[in-house]
């Protein structure tokens, strides 16, 4: 390899140019400038985002940061006291927290797969229907999502009523003795799980239907030409291509299940005993009944970390490989 020899003037010019390039490169890597330039360039977009950003900071970011700060304090109205990790130690030593965590995990592990899979199955069934029927079922299945959980819980409480509830009425047809669904430790949590499973996952159905609509029909045609039947097409085309939607829905329903609260407070109050105690209900009781805001914040932070870990695991397992 031959090297081109430059005269001293040219060498000086090249050196100066390189120095200039390096300076510009360094300049362009200065983050604030880039961010500032970007903001200046897209100021209208940032202006549109500003109201939402202010609301986010006020009502989400600030409370989260405040909760973390509180979790290291014993909250008092006349001046809180910093107590280090005492609240966290109390959380991990607490029998009530352990029971609530166990119940919440069981609730999540059963309801999340059931909700997501049932949403997928219902979506597949609806997708093949005509436009009008599809719209009807889409609306019908989405209805529970826009209905207050308080109302739904009240209706289900009646359905589980020992004396005149719907479930015991059906059981009586088969000569089965009535069950005290919400009054026995053995059945109370399962009654709540069954309720959550049987309420259609409206958001999931809508999202699956939208995603199915975007799958190219040519893939199915090619599969049919290759002799793949409907089941093979479903498992080898539909399911893999819906993976990003599935990931999103699993994350969404996992977070929702970990935060189960309304059904508990409306239907069982965590009882009988502690059989239906869940994490958010425990946090609520600790904060607003026992007024131990520091401890409640520590419980909330631990719940946040648990959800985060679950989300990371789900993301890694289900992420869409490019």
């Amino acid at each position: 390899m031959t090297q081109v020899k430059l005269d001293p003037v040219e060498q000086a010019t090249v050196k100066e140019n390189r120095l200039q390039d390096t300076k510009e490169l360094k300049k362009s890597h200065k983050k604030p400038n880039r961010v500032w330039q970007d903001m200046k360039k897209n100021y209208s977009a940032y202006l549109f985002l500003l109201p939402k950003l202010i609301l986010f900071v006020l009502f989400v970011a600030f409370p989260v940061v405040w909760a973390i700060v509180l979790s290291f304090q014993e909250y008092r109205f006349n001046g809180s006291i910093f107590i280090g990790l005492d609240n966290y130690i109390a959380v991990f030593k607490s029998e009530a927290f352990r029971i609530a965590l166990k119940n919440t995990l069981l609730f999540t592990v059963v309801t999340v797969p059931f909700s997501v899979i049932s949403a997928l199955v219902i979506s597949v069934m609806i997708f093949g229907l005509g436009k009008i029927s599809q719209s009807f079922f889409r609306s019908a299945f989405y209805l529970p999502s826009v209905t207050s959980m308080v109302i739904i819980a009240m209706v289900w409480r009646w359905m589980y009523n020992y004396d005149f509830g719907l479930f015991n009425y059906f059981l009586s047809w088969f000569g089965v003795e009535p069950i005290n669904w919400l009054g026995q430790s053995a059945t109370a949590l399962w009654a709540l799980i069954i309720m959550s499973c049987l309420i259609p996952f409206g958001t999931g159905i809508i999202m699956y239907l939208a995603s199915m609509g975007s799958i190219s029909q040519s893939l199915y045609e090619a599969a049919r030409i290759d002799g793949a039947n409907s089941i093979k097409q479903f498992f080898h085309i539909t399911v893999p291509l819906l993976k990003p939607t599935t990931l999103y829905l699993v994350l969404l329903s996992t977070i929702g299940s970990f935060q189960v609260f309304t059904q508990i407070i409306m239907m069982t109050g965590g009882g009988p005993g502690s059989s239906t105690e869940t994490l958010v209900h425990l946090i609520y009781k600790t904060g607003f009944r026992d007024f131990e805001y520091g401890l409640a914040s520590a419980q909330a932070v631990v719940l946040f970390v648990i959800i985060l870990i679950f989300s990371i695991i789900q993301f890694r397992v289900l992420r869409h490989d490019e």
Partner: protein
Amino acid sequence: MKRIWKKSTLLLASLGLTASMLAACSGGSNEEVGDADEFKGTITIWDGPRWPDEDDNKYHWLESKIAEYEAAHEGIKIELVQVPWAEMGDKLGVSIAGQAWPDIAPVDISGSSVSIDHIEQGVVEPLDAYLTKEEKADFYENALDAYSYDGKLYGIPNSITLHTMLLNLDLFEERGVTPPENGKWTYAEFLKTAKDLTFDRDGDGKTDVYGFSTYILPGYYEAWPFFYKNGGSPLNEDLTEFTFDDPKVVQAIQDLADLKLKEDAAPETLGGSDVGGTFQAWANEEQRTVAMEPWATWAIGSAQGAYPTNFMVAEYPTGDSGESVTIGGVGGWLMFNQKDDANKKAAVADFMKFISSTEEQFTMAQHYGIFPARISSSDMEPFKDNPEMARAMEMSDQVVMLPRHPEWKKIDEAIQTQLQLVFNGEKTAEQAMADAKKVVDELLK
């Protein structure tokens, strides 16, 4: 001269020391009392629904008092926030957490809305400076005690409640069962009555009416007088020891649970958590599936009004102790922290006294199913035309108050959640109270 100066200095110093010690001991009793007439502004008061007027407005009593007070005090506006009773505790809890409390709210200080911790932290204002000795002397001692902590008064009591047994006399008549004479009975008599009142009305082999029912839920004490029937209490006198595991208490708990588990004289829902459903089973004309239930005195008003029932008031049955016991409660108005605004404090206290006067407590007693906390209101005989309320009032001397421990809410939950397991047959009373003891002992440490 030097000696005299030395002596004077010493005297002054000792006088100063004595004065400062006296000031410290007085605990702020010489706090500046403002002038209510000087205050101009808004006072916020929360209240729950009370008795309805002809337009079914359940806030009409307080609204009329507000209008009267505002007319007499120019520049003062009183804002009423209507809060359903079921939400009062939660709403107060959230408002205390956010330090956005009202000026006045109706609170049973031993309940779950406001704790002793809050008093210690200054969330609730002491009221001693606004009530004279003579004014205080007009309140029943136990009512004042309920609102006193560490020698100071933290509220104006406006009502006393207790629990009674309510007996549906139509069902007694239908079964030919004689109700207890003067409402007094032993547990054995109660048990026999409950069994006699349990029957299959239509002959389909299923029980249609049960003798007795109640519910078990943290913060509710309808069933608790049964647990006191042989003597005993949840904590010992100096609140250092859990005593509900005493064999006589354990036996009393098991006896009541056995009404369902062994005697079949109570429905499956006995000891459940459905408060509304339990009341409907006794009071609703379309149900009437339970003949006897224990309730606080508000239910007497309800059974005379919204749910007209042919009923009588009875005492809780007696056990080994031979004495009937009931759990009592005291309601009243609290003033929340006013941030050193002395004039506003005085105005708020003035309004609290205005709505807690002898006449107002008399009116409340007549219409709202509570007993007055003022002796002068009771002297006006609010129940002379209401024999059921008068009978309930006679039970005032049987009242036992719940222990006033700072951790009571947690202790209560530890006991009540275990009681739920006894009543659904998952644990014996002995096992349940032994398990409750483990939790309560930790809380009492």
